[in-house]
């Protein structure tokens, strides 16, 4: 199980918001289009349901299956980048109360050793994505950094 694997990438951030706010920001396209490479997310967010991230033009960029949806504290999905021959990875978000704020931990697990160049894409992307999520929830504004290409283009 994913819990027993060593994560390849971990990113922790603390956010002055409720766990419900963070859950909504992770799962609703009204939020993701403002911090996630401009992409729209969609799913019913129940276990076994499909989920996907769509580029602004409507093309699917990432897709997978919801593995755990324990609103608002634990979301785990399989994660397959479209158009590349890579085994899917598992991305887990945990959202924990921490005093007056919440601690968001993102872990990315890969089932098999991966070309470091692919891992670098995630290591570069997650701080941008989750810094943008924090700014959006705390200030209602978009983090003004250039939107990088979606991961599959950046790594090719």
């Amino acid at each position, binding site marked *: 199980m994913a819990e027993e694997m060593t994560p390849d990438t971990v990113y922790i951030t603390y956010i002055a918001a409720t766990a419900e706010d963070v859950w909504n920001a992770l799962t609703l396209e009204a939020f993701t289009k403002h911090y996630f490479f401009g992409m729209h997310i969609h799913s019913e967010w129940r276990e076994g349901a499909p989920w996907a991230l769509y580029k602004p033009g409507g093309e699917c960029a990432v897709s997978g299956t919801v593995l755990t949806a324990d609103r608002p504290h634990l979301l785990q999905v399989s994660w397959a980048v479209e158009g590349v021959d890579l085994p899917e990875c598992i991305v887990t978000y945990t959202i924990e109360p*921490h005093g007056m704020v919440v601690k968001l931990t993102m872990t990315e697990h890969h089932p098999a050793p991966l070309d470091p160049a692919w891992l670098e894409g995630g290591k570069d992307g997650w*701080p941008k994505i989750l*810094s943008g999520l924090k*700014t959006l929830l705390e200030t209602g504004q978009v983090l003004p*950094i250039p939107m990088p290409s979606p991961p599959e283009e950046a790594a090719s």
Partner: protein
Amino acid sequence: MSAESDPDYVYVIYIKASREKVWAALTDREERAWWANTRHDTTFEKNAPLAFRRNGRVDVRGVIKEIDPPKKLVYTFRSEGPGPQHDEGDSLVTYDLAEDGDATKLTVLHTGFVKNSNLRNAISGGWPSVLSSLKTMLESGGRDNYTFGAMRKSA
């Protein structure tokens, strides 16, 4: 990285503030809530000693090794007691500040850990909370009333 040491630690955060403002906050010498009520006791000059003072004691001692405002700061970092991490000797912290759009990309690199380091375990929890607090402080117009760290003083 060798088998005799733990891997380097790196944390990257993007902050909606100018590089000068991020630099000014990181080299501030007042007690600040966002840094878990810590005061940086140093002149921030090359070869100057550095102490992190909090609640009347010193948590960290070091020496400024390199300073290039507003881009780069390097200092040695030795944890003072209590706790098992205090006798692991000097580690090294590097701040790198880069402009990215209208934001600043802040990279904190912490290196020089012993094998099975208690210090690395401690700072892996500490940097995300301190730097999350810094981002919130700067993006909320400089209000220093956010302390996200577990070490916060009860208010």
